[in-house]
């Protein structure tokens, strides 16, 4: 499968997919995270939760139903065994720890597990939507993002500078270069992506991180 991973986003999505277990209830942010299910093995079925009010998000199946959209407002489907509910219940599930994993993009993440992904003051203020509830309530928060911003600067920082989405909420960071875990002792690099060496990661990462002994 590795051979088919032609771009950074696919590398990231494929690695995140390995974190999901059969039966997990998962909420995926828009953009890159929505690519994750494409990389799940055939024997791993996850249940996607959509914060606009349902469980069992699936691809569009048959005709478009104008009343059936995903959390990005795009036409979507529902799998057999899914269920619709209102926004209150949707966030009871999210905030109440009934979502096993959420995968979200990030503008900045830091060694404390802080995440910033909802606004750039003076430039972009779209609103937080459901992201703040997701990072607060999901059992596991995975940030899936390219390692560097378009400007080339590191997105993994010692301390976030943008307004936070959540404080101390991130469990894992997956980029096209490496996989990190946020622990009480700070950030730890757990894996290097195929063909990447540790020096490259150090060079491209502002944050100070520890190294899992398994990495050489």
């Amino acid at each position: 499968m590795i051979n088919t991973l032609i771009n950074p986003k696919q590398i990231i999505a494929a690695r995140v997919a390995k974190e999901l277990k059969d039966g997990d209830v998962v909420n995926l942010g828009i953009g890159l995270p929505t690519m994750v299910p494409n990389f799940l093995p055939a024997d791993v079925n996850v249940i996607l939760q959509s914060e606009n009010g349902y469980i069992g998000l699936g691809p569009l199946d048959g005709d478009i139903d104008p009343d059936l959209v995903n959390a990005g407002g795009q036409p979507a489907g529902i799998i057999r065994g899914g269920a619709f509910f209102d926004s209150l219940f949707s966030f009871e599930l999210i905030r109440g720890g009934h979502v096993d994993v959420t995968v979200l993009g990030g503008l900045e993440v830091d060694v404390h597990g802080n995440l910033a992904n909802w606004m750039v003051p003076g430039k972009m203020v779209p609103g937080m939507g459901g992201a703040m509830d997701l990072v607060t309530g999901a059992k596991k928060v995975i940030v899936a993002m390219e390692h560097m911003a378009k400007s080339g600067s590191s997105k993994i920082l010692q301390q976030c500078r943008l307004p936070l989405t959540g404080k101390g909420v991130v469990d894992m960071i997956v980029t096209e270069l490496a996989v990190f875990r946020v622990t009480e002792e700070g950030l730890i690099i757990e894996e290097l992506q195929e063909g990447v060496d540790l020096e490259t990661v150090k060079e491209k990462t502002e944050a100070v991180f520890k190294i899992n002994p398994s990495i050489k």
Partner: protein
Amino acid sequence: MNKITSMEEISSILTDGMTIMAGGFMGVGTPQELVTAMLESGVKDITLIANDTAFTGTGVGPLIVNRRVKKVIASHIGTNPETGKQMIAGELDVELVPQGTLAERVRAGGSGLGGVLTPTGVGTVVEEGKEKITVDGREYLLEKPLRAEVALLKAYKADKAGNLIYHRSARNFNPLMALAADTVIVQVEKIVEIGEIDPDEVMTPGILVDKIFVQGGC
């Protein structure tokens, strides 16, 4: 008591400066004909409570584009560039609320609670100006109830008593808002006689619904 209403009656209910809640998520589950009624009524200086400001041409978006809104309380405004433009120009007051908190605040307003203690937003700009309450060692924000004078909702089906059934993901904020406004007006695709909806299948009981507008204006 006949709850079936007309565009004219709706216009007569709306007044400048009102606080109005509207159901919907990016326009899905928004009562589009009631939004049109608002536009045609000329009502302005509205405080709008909605999940998002949708797109420029659909959902509650046209209310923003046509400058009928003075203040918006929502979780997301990114899909309607006009909202951000008016906000930056200082012409529109925007209060951004996390989506789950928005749902809780509307429910609190509709169910007689003094507010809700949520962990969402602790340590972010959302906590600014809010009371923090520590319960068993964990910090929560005290988020206050929201209510409106009028709620504009969309359902799939109503009986003449106002019992409602929603369809698919168009349910979203509609059932919560039915609790939290002085006058609840719902646009429906289909109306049936009382007794035709099984009481186990009712999603919003008719006692919460004041006016029913049948889509297409039957």
